[in-house]
């Protein structure tokens, strides 16, 4: 599966996922009302330090945030236009710190561990007759469906190119929708045929 994670181990990978999530929520709440650019600049440096502590892999991760940098330039530019440049810089620093910190939690936590950490959130589903396992099944289905959809699209594109010589067209949208939906119906039938999600309501 495509994923964002940096390979471990490191001190950050060793921390349990729920500790990292709580730390993130806490720092977000703490940073949000701060306006002082010095404090915000210092927090950006601290977060940079987190990435640096992971070595070259960690620093390489920072390059992936280039699209975010364009957005920051745009925001600071709009602030400069309205004559609130200093405020704009504070906000850019705060966003940088918060986004980098959130990203740091994501890149050092495996998706499975993250899923386990939030699993208790789904326990209330039991009270309304649902199953806490269903969200996990749905997650698995999404991860499997996404590449299948792209394959269907690519096949249609290839056939279209063979017929017309053109690369792609909006005309492919309709057959894509129909083929993909039919595929999903088959998956639903196959799931029911194998006992369905009813059997999930028990223990793991």
């Amino acid at each position, binding site marked *: 599966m495509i994923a964002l994670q940096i390979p471990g181990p490191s001190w950050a990978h060793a921390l349990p996922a729920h500790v990292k999530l709580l730390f993130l929520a806490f720092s977000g709440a703490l940073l949000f009302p701060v306006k002082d650019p010095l404090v915000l600049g210092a927090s950006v440096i601290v977060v940079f330090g987190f990435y640096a502590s992971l070595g070259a892999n960690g620093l390489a991760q920072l390059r992936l945030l280039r699209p975010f940098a364009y*957005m920051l330039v745009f925001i600071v530019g709009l602030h400069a236009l309205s004559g609130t440049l200093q405020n704009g810089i504070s906000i850019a620093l705060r966003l940088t710190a918060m986004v980098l*910190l959130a990203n740091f939690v994501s890149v050092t936590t495996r998706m499975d561990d993250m899923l386990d950490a939030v699993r208790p959130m789904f326990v209330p589903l039991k009270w309304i007759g649902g199953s806490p396992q269903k969200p996990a099944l749905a997650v698995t289905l999404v*991860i499997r*469906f996404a590449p299948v959809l792209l394959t269907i699209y690519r096949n249609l594109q290839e056939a279209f190119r063979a017929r017309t010589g053109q690369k792609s067209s909006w005309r492919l949208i309709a057959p894509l929708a129909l083929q993909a939906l039919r595929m*999903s119906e088959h998956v639903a039938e196959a799931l029911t045929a194998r006992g369905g999600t009813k059997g999930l309501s028990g223990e793991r």
Partner: protein
Amino acid sequence: MSDRSLVQIAFYAALIAALGLLPPIAIPFLGGVPITAQSLGVMLAGVMLGPVRGALAVLLLLFLVALGAPLLSGGRGGLAVFAGPSVGFLIGWPVGAFVAGLIMQKTANYNVLVSAAFAAAIGGIGVIYAFGIPGLVVMTDLTFAKAAMGSAIYLPGDLVKVAIAAIVAQTVARGLPHALMSRA
């Protein structure tokens, strides 16, 4: 919830993800602003699945993103997107899908093409911007007018997506009518 609903919810969540993986298209006559197909998926989830399932499909995708899957356009993902300036748009997504689905149900007597276009425009543009622009204001401290101006560059692309969503709904209503679950 039936097996079929669960699979359909997962299917539309995957569709939103797959549409985000398609390379962005720069439309020359619209000033060359790159548009991604991702919010088309949000519109389709609402229009095709109806309010509750549509909103659940979008929430499922956002859940995967929060778990760390880079499924938003441009390979973005992880908790970072929820700390960024465009978080308001993401919050607006499930609400937009819900509203689009609700409109589809309430206009069940009308032509599919017309009511799907209407549902996608109100839910997929109106509602999403109604969350996204105030979100930008909160996260960036810009004035409302500036935030709205910055968001308006995506409006032409979104109108194209409304048209596509309506055509897809019409096609499915003809070719696979029971898959249009908002009307079933």
